[in-house]
């Protein structure tokens, strides 16, 4: 069945099962370290320290040694018990020393095939092939320490199988059956683009959140940190004037945001360095990454929703991020790291470049110039009412603290004005357009976001109305694709109902597969 030459001389067994190269132990070691770093640092560290301080100090070396031994033994076992083969319509993997698992991943279910170049394999010229399925994250296969040629061959073989299995669909996708076209780059990003992306999209928050999480594990309070640094907060407050303290606070805030911005830029450059998106007739190939180079292959037909996102800083510099969403997995919702990997993000796209990307991915020729049906002014009025109702009771506070009156009232009024302005923008941005089988939902406050999807890929579509909305002849529509849910509130009822009818018609009459 399989024709790929055996990697590193690990000859396949008679039934086609193959082993990885021994170098894969490095991969398993790295995996174990990543998986158990918390336990090692927060358990092993203090335990060693405690042991070293106690009267058993001569045995303190035992704990780090045990940890290292555990990691090494596990890597060896992982390597020894790992085997894989391409068999029939499946990629099969057997792994695990204690609990044996046998995973069979159907070619038709494979979503992405990525070739990763981890830094620890770079000097050896080896790569890791990651195969991603449309099922859960546990159905993920890592084939570590392959040579580039082997990885490419395996990938080509899987792609060929997949296309063979999807042959019927292929005929439907493109009846003209053009000969396969060579891959061509259609979108690249320079270093300066990535710096802009880092500045406008605060990726550093992920890192900060991670650090904060670690700090909370250590139970370190601000006082402790100050104590370590040698500042006595109480004395500081007594000695220095309030103005000096304010100055220090502002200074540290500025320093902190500078640090965050630097981290953010660094994160953006590390993740998206050398970003290139190539196209062929059926697939997209995205290459990115500084330390670990990722090469992501995805079939265009598997992309469910394209989200064009513009944060407020993006708006100022006229950039956007384009996110290509594939089938999402309920269990992983909310897991940022999983999201980062499953979703494909094109960073720092200029406004005039957006159409080329949406056209390439889902034949949506334009999204900016469409005739959007705006959402009703009632939406704005409702939000003004809600926000006013929230602000009004706080005006009672000065009754209990009259000396704050002069400062407090303008503050509340300012806050109210800001909230109302945001509601106004949100109302202005809201809208829905359906053009040539493509549904585009517009939203946002300062920046403008678009959710773009093909009407025939709808999984479910809902029409929602309260009695109050019914009286004013407005409705909300909820579109659900396999990747995301998009809600457009307060559309004129007649239009909303026709949108529901059209999407149902498109899904039911189309002969194309949504996968």
């Amino acid at each position, binding site marked *: 069945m399989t024709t790929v030459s055996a990697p590193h001389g690990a000859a396949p067994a008679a039934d086609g099962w193959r082993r990885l190269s021994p170098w894969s132990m490095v991969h398993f070691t790295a995996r174990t370290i990543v998986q158990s770093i918390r336990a090692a640092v927060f358990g092993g560290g203090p335990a060693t320290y405690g042991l070293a301080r106690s009267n058993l100090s001569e045995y303190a070396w035992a704990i780090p040694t045990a940890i290292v031994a555990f990691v090494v033994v596990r890597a060896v076992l992982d390597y020894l018990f790992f085997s894989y083969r391409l068999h029939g319509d499946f990629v099969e993997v057997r792994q695990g020393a204690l609990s044996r698992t046998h995973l069979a991943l159907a070619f*038709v*279910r494979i979503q992405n095939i990525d070739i990763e170049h981890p830094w620890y394999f770079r000097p050896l010229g080896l790569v890791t092939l990651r195969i991603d399925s449309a099922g859960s994250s546990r159905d993920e296969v890592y084939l570590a320490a392959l040579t580039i040629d082997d990885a490419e061959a395996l990938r080509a073989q899987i792609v060929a199988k997949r296309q063979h299995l999807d042959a019927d669909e292929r*005929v439907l996708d493109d*009846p003209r059956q053009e000969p396969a076209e060579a891959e061509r780059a259609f979108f690249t990003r320079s270093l300066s683009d990535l710096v802009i992306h880092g500045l406008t999209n605060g990726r550093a928050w992920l890192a900060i959140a991670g650090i904060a999480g670690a700090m909370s594990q250590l139970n370190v309070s601000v006082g402790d940190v100050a104590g370590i640094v040698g500042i006595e907060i109480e004395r500081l407050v007594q000695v220095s004037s309030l103005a000096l303290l304010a100055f220090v606070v502002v200074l540290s805030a500025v320093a902190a945001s500078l640090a965050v911005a630097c981290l953010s830029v660094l994160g953006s450059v590390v993740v998206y360095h050398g970003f290139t998106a190539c196209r062929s007739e059926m697939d997209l190939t995205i290459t990115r990454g500084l330390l670990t180079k990722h090469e992501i292959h995805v079939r265009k037909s598997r992309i469910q929703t394209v989200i064009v996102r513009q944060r407020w800083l993006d708006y100022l510099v006229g950039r956007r991020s384009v996110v290509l969403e594939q089938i999402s997995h309920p269990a992983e919702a909310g897991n940022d790291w999983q999201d980062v990997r499953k979703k494909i993000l094109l960073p720092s796209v200029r406004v005039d470049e957006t159409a080329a990307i949406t056209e390439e991915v889902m034949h949506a020729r334009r999204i900016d110039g469409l005739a959007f049906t705006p959402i009703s002014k009632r939406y704005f009025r409702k939000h003004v009412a809600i926000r006013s109702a929230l602000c009004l009771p706080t005006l009672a506070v000065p009754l209990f603290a009259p000396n704050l009156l002069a400062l407090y009232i303008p503050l509340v009024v300012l806050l109210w004005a800001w909230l109302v302005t945001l509601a106004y923008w949100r109302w202005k941005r809201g809208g829905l357009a359906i053009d040539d089988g493509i549904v585009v939902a517009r939203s946002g406050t300062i920046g403008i976001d678009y959710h773009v999807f093909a009407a025939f890929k709808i999984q479910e*579509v809902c029409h*929602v109305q*309260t009695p109050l909305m019914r009286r004013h002849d407005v409705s909300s529509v909820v579109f659900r694709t396999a990747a995301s849910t998009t809600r457009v509130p307060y559309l004129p009822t007649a239009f909303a*109902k026709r949108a529901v009818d059209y999407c149902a*018609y498109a899904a039911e009459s189309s002969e194309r597969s949504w996968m």
Partner: protein
Amino acid sequence: MSFTNPDVDIAALPRFDEARLHALHPRYPRLVLALVGLIEVPAFIVIAVVVSLLGRDRVPAPFAIVLGVLALFVAVAWFRHKAASVIRYAVRQHDVIVRSGVFWKKDAVQPIKRIQHVEEVQGPLDKFFDLSTLKLFSAGTGDVRLQIPGLDVATAAALRSFILSVHESGADAPAPAAPAHAVEPAANAAPPSAVADAAGESAAPLSERSEP
């Protein structure tokens, strides 16, 4: 194979709000009441006993508290009963429509082609009332799924086999007859749909989608 891409007359498309809606089985609101009662009645007894045991010196106005809890429980029971009795469903040749919601009235349209698998569920209480729930699963975010509760067993089975037959035979299976008790005065029956003409024999077999 020639490729054509004619314009779609959106105004002439079949309308989801004109589909013939069926009510659930009349026993279903009673089932919901029984379910609520199973939780609320013991909870109320426990609260009443605890409050009266604690007495006036430790709980201010025990009678008012018990009365308040009773009012809350009655309101919840009323709301659940109301929500159960407003559910309607419609089955067209290509989709299932479920209407629900007391305040937020929601019409969910689920194309049958997009259904990954169908589950017929009958809990102990369902069994007692001789009803069952049909769950329709499609791919996507969250564990969102459409369910039609309060179907009598025969209707649920007929609906299930209709959905499966649409999957197997393309889209040409006849829609199941509505149960006698459940027909609402039809606003106006949907015209032979343009969708039906356009669909042809396309849907992928269900077996392919439920592979490991």
